[in-house]
Structures are given as structure tokens and as C-alpha cells.
């Protein structure tokens, strides 16, 4: 088992180190890092904007590049959170709590250094877990029929809706809305055109890139314009500041390990968003600390643990996405969409049929994370400069990249119009405090959920009990019931205390979880 995994990994390194693949991986990491640093741009916007660039590539470099963009932008987001108190990606809201106070104390460099070490460590652990867990999961996944696939998707959607952020009811509403968006287009079984409202262009589904860029690009600009003023007082970070002292390393080590474990655990659960992961990691640190009062005033543990958690979760999240075709969160859903555009159907067959993609991707994680580490040491000065790109220059330029990117997807101006519509829809929903990231999860899974549900019930002659009579499926349904029960218990016992919610909206460093 171990020998097989190692030889597969060796093969993967061979693929990932091919000059062309290495180049695209490097390019993805660099661009992802760059976009992630820019104020108001997170992993989702980075991937959506750059997705069209990958269409002309072969599947292997395309996937390597997209993965590079993902963890590159994630790292870039941490820089903005620590130096400017600006969480451009929700999971980094937690990093702000202690990272920014550290910057104000002149220890921003150390915080960045620890973040880097924590991410590299956590990513390495996540990769190892992925190497050994994926083949196991594949063996189980081969036993899956439509019944099981529907049940696990239901569990993933339910977990994504209720456990990510804000009110669970709103999460369910957004997931349902996403599923409905997934329904738009021609029904495969009957050929009926659903919700196309006479637009010929909609008969072939809503375009993924248009939806993602509308929701995560244009909607953000509409919300932030004239409101996001990046003032960032003069932060200076030099190379030498970034090297943590031995005492600081020691202080950060255990939080880093704990954060990694939490991230790995949450990565294995489908549907748990990245935000909840970092929140739990932070909460655990405050509970374990001898002096919890330090948190919120520049505690190193409060940076190391959540950052480690988010990076190990990122890696582990790839397991269900690649082996089952079931994405854990919105970013994974987007990557899944990208794989499908490349003609790859994620699922248990992927590892055997496209071994180069799968093992190349795993090896490239390592190479990419090391590249990221090396890249950020000399480039940190440039990133600090980039943080000060005024929003008034950034968003118009980004709008052009969005427009041309969507157009080049299918040479269709209609889809650029879709971007505008989803941008406005997304902005309205954000203003009403709906969690819009779950829309994407619903949209991607929508057709799969429908198809498998219909097939399962066709097989059982319309008997709904099939979902609990088959053992694997029953486990997933049990998980769903547990989730819903927990939510009801929360609602009944919670005495007007919404700690996750409070943390989500907190960019003020004074707020600490209770």
C-alpha cells in the first residue's frame, strides 16, 4: 500500500516537474498570490477571472495552474489581513484579529513569517493525508450507485448551507437558489427547456464563469465602491523582520500542529466551509491558552493556528472533490467545474483513467507550496506596495478582465450580460446578508443531484425508503438528520448569542469569541 502510494507519487513528481507543467504551476502561484494580495479580491474571484486562460491548455497544466492560483491567492489574502486588517476572503477574518495588532506593534513581519511556515507545514500534512486517503476513498466510492451519490450530495449541501456562516435558514435558501440556477437549461431526460424565458443562449445552462464572476467579482465591486478606502498606514516589512526568533517558533509550533489537525478533520467532512474551520481553530487556541486575554492583542498563536487550519483544509478538500466528484466548498465547486470544462469527470475513475492529472496535481501541491514559500521571501516588498493600489484603479481594470474573460469563454457577449445580471443579484443578496458562496455549490451540484435522485427513484419504483434501506446511503442520511437535529437544538438553546455571526462581521480586533 505504502509502496504503491510512493511509486505513484514519484510518477506524479515526474509529471509536475515537466518544464511546461512546472511553468504553469509557477505562473498560477504567482498570479494567484498577486490577485490575492489586491484589496477585495479573494480566491474565488482570482480563480473565476483566470479560468478562461486555461481553456487552451492541456488538462494537466490547466489543473496545476488553477490549484496554484487557489493556494497562491489564499496566501496573498493572509498578507492583506495581517498588514491592513482587510479580510478579502472570509476565512482570513480570524487572522485579522491577532495579525493586525501584531502589525501595529511592528511585528507584522514575524506574523507573515509564521504564516508562511504554518502554511507550508499544514499543506505538507494535508498532502500526505491526501496521498493515503484518496485510494481508500476510491475503493468505497466504486460501491456508490445513484442512491448513495444523492445521499452524500444531500449531506454535503446541507452541511455547506448550515455550517458555513451566518443563519442556517439563509444558507439553505441560498443553496436552494443555487440548485434552481442549476436547473436552468435543457432537461436531459425530456428535452424540455426550463426557465430559459425564450433566450436561446440559456438552453445550454447558465455559464459557470459568468455566474462566478458576477457573484464574486461584480457584486463585490458594487458593494465596496466608494466604501472601501485602503488607507493602510505606512507598513514596512523587510526580509529580516520575517524571520521569527527561536522562542517565537516554539510558541507557534503547537498551535500550528493543532490547527493542522483541525483543518484536516474539517477537510474530510463534506460541506464544512473554510470559515468555520479557522473559527474553530482560533476558538481552540483561546480555550487552551494560559492567558486568553492576550488574544486580540497580537497573540502569535491566533495567527499560526487558523492559517495552518485553512491550508491543511485546502489540501484535504481536494480528496472528496477529485475522488467522489463532490466539492467541499465554493472554491472546490469552481475547480470541479473547471475539470469538467477540460472534459475530465471527477470521480473514482479519475485516479485510474487520468493518473497523470491526479498524481501530478498532488506532487505539484508540494512544488507549488515550496515555490510560494520561496517566492514570498523576496517579493514581500512588492506585495506591500500592491496592497496600496487604490481601489478606484483596481475595480475598473478588474471589470475589463472579467468582461474579456467571460467573452473569451464561448465568444459570447450574451454571457457578459449574464455577469451583469448575477452581479446585481449577488449584490442585493449580499446587502440582505445572504451567504452567496453556497449558491455556487448548489449550481454545480444541481444537475447531479437531480439526475441521481431521479435515477434512484426510477430503480426503486418511486419508493423513497430506498435512501435508508441501502446501508451506505443510510449513514449519509443519518448524518443529515444529525445535522438538522443539532441545528434545532442550537436554535432552542441559544440565548440570543450568535458567536460565529459576531466573529464573521468583526473586523475590529477587539472582538474575541466567547
Amino acid at each position, binding site marked *: 500500500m505504502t509502496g504503491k502510494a510512493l511509486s505513484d507519487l514519484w510518477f506524479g513528481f515526474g509529471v509536475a516537474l515537466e518544464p511546461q507543467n512546472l511553468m504553469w504551476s509557477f505562473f498560477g502561484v504567482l498570479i494567484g498570490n498577486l490577485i490575492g494580495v489586491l484589496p477585495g479580491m479573494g480566491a474565488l474571484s482570482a480563480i473565476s477571472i483566470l479560468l478562461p486562460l486555461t481553456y487552451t491548455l492541456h488538462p494537466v497544466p490547466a489543473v496545476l495552474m488553477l490549484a496554484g492560483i487557489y493556494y497562491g491567492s489564499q496566501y496573498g489574502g493572509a498578507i492583506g489581513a495581517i498588514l491592513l486588517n482587510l479580510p478579502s476572503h472570509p476565512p482570513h477574518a480570524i487572522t485579522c484579529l491577532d495579525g493586525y495588532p501584531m502589525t501595529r506593534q511592528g511585528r507584522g513581519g514575524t506574523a507573515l513569517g509564521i504564516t508562511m511556515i504554518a502554511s507550508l507545514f499544514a499543506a505538507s500534512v494535508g498532502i500526505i493525508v491526501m496521498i493515503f486517503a484518496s485510494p481508500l476513498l476510491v475503493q468505497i466510492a466504486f460501491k456508490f450507485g445513484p442512491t448513495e451519490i444523492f445521499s452524500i450530495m444531500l449531506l454535503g449541501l446541507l452541511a455547506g448551507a448550515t455550517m458555513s456562516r451566518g443563519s442556517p435558514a439563509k444558507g439553505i435558501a441560498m443553496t436552494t437558489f443555487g440548485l434552481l440556477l442549476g436547473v436552468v437549461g435543457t432537461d436531459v431526460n425530456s428535452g424540455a427547456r426550463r426557465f430559459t424565458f425564450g433566450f436561446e443562449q440559456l438552453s445550454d445552462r447558465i455559464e459557470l464563469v459568468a455566474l462566478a464572476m458576477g457573484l464574486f467579482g461584480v457584486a463585490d465591486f458594487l458593494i465596496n465602491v466608494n466604501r472601501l478606502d485602503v488607507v493602510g498606514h505606512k507598513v514596512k516589512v523587510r526580509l529580516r523582520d520575517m524571520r521569527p526568533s527561536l522562542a517565537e517558533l516554539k510558541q507557534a509550533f503547537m498551535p500550528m500542529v493543532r490547527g493542522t489537525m483541525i483543518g484536516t478533520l474539517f477537510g474530510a467532512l463534506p460541506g464544512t466551509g473554510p470559515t468555520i474551520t479557522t473559527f474553530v481553530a482560533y476558538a481552540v487556541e483561546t480555550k487552551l491558552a494560559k492567558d486568553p486575554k492576550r488574544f486580540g492583542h497580537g497573540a502569535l498563536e491566533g495567527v499560526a493556528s487558523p492559517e495552518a487550519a485553512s491550508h491543511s483544509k485546502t489540501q484535504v478538500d481536494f480528496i472528496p472533490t477529485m475522488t467522489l466528484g463532490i466539492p467541499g466548498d465554493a472554491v472546490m465547486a469552481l475547480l470541479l467545474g473547471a475539470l469538467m470544462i477540460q472534459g475530465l469527470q471527477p470521480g473514482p475513475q479519475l485516479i485510474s483513467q487520468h493518473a497523470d492529472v491526479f498524481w501530478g496535481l498532488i506532487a505539484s501541491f508540494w512544488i507549488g507550496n515550496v515555490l510560494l514559500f520561496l517566492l514570498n521571501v523576496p517579493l514581500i516588498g512588492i506585495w506591500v506596495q500592491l496592497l496600496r493600489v487604490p481601489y478606484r484603479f483596481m*475595480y475598473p481594470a478588474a471589470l475589463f478582465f472579467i468582461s474579456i474573460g467571460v467573452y473569451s469563454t464561448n465568444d459570447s457577449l450574451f454571457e457578459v450580460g449574464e455577469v451583469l445580471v448575477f452581479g446585481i443579484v449577488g449584490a442585493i443578496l449580499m446587502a440582505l446578508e445572504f451567504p452567496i458562496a453556497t449558491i455556487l455549490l448548489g449550481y454545480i451540484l444541481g444537475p447531479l443531484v437531480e439526475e441521481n435522485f431521479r435515477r434512484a427513484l426510477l430503480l426503486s419504483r418511486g419508493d423513497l425508503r430506498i435512501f435508508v434501506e441501502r446501508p451506505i446511503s443510510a449513514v449519509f442520511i443519518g448524518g443529515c438528520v444529525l445535522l438538522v437535529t443539532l441545528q434545532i437544538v442550537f436554535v432552542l438553546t441559544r440565548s440570543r448569542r450568535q458567536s460565529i455571526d459576531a466573529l464573521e462581521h468583526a473586523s475590529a480586533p477587539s472582538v474575541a469569541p466567547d
Partner: protein
Amino acid sequence: MHHLRKLPKDVWGGALMVAIGGGVVLQTELNYPIGTLQRMGPGYIPLVLGMILIATGLYIAGKAFVTGPGRAVLQARPPQWRAWALISLGIAGFVAAADYLGLVPAAFAVVFIAALGDRGNSWSSAALLALGIVVVAVVVFWWGLQVQLPLLRSPLP
């Protein structure tokens, strides 16, 4: 109308979900066969989803109506009608200009119009930014990535 503004945000949010769900159910009932659980028609799933949306919308709105605005009183931020209109117009401008005039005017239009939405931009800074992006558009997208859009085209067929 004034008292409507005092309603908690979630009442509006819930109402919006009910409206969307209602629209879906209506459209489904009118146009798509529902079928049976064993042999579902194209309308079955949308109908179920529409009803779930109505139910959650009612719950969200009802809960907010009972508990009131509660803790989450966010600082009111002034609406940015001008910026919102100009950003939307910028994208629409890209579509129109790309359709009739070509890539160069389209790139200029989206950046220039959208940039005017920010109070910090003047006419000249917006124009300068737009010109810079036009250069990127020509070099990177037209020449480098070979995007299928002529640089300039005649608006008349």
C-alpha cells in the same frame, strides 16, 4: 411608506425568497409536466425546490418579524446610486461596443465608465486608466491570447 423602512432586513430577505420560490412554482405549474415520483417530469425537481424556497423564506421573514431587528444593527451606509449605475453601465457599454465597434472601444468603455463611479477619479484619471487597459487588451488579449474580437469594426454591416 416610511414605516416600511423600519422593518428588519430579514423580512425583506425572506419576502424576496418567497417571491422567487413563488415565481418558480408558478412557472413550473404552468409550463412543465410534474410526473410521478417514479417517473419524474421536468417540473418535479423545480417544483420541490420552489416550495423549499418559499418555506425557508417564510421562516426567515417570520423569525425576523417576531424578534425585530435584534442585535445586528449595521451602520447604515449611504446608497451609491451613481457608482452602481456607472458600473452596470460600464459592462453594458462593453457588450454594446464589442458588438458594434470592436475590442478597443469596448475596453475603453468598460474601464472609463466604471472608473467614473468612484468619487476619487476625475475624467482625466479615468481616461488615462482606460487607455492603459486598452494597451493591455491589445497586447495581451488580442495579440497574445488571440481573443476572437476585431480591434475595430465598422458599426454598419
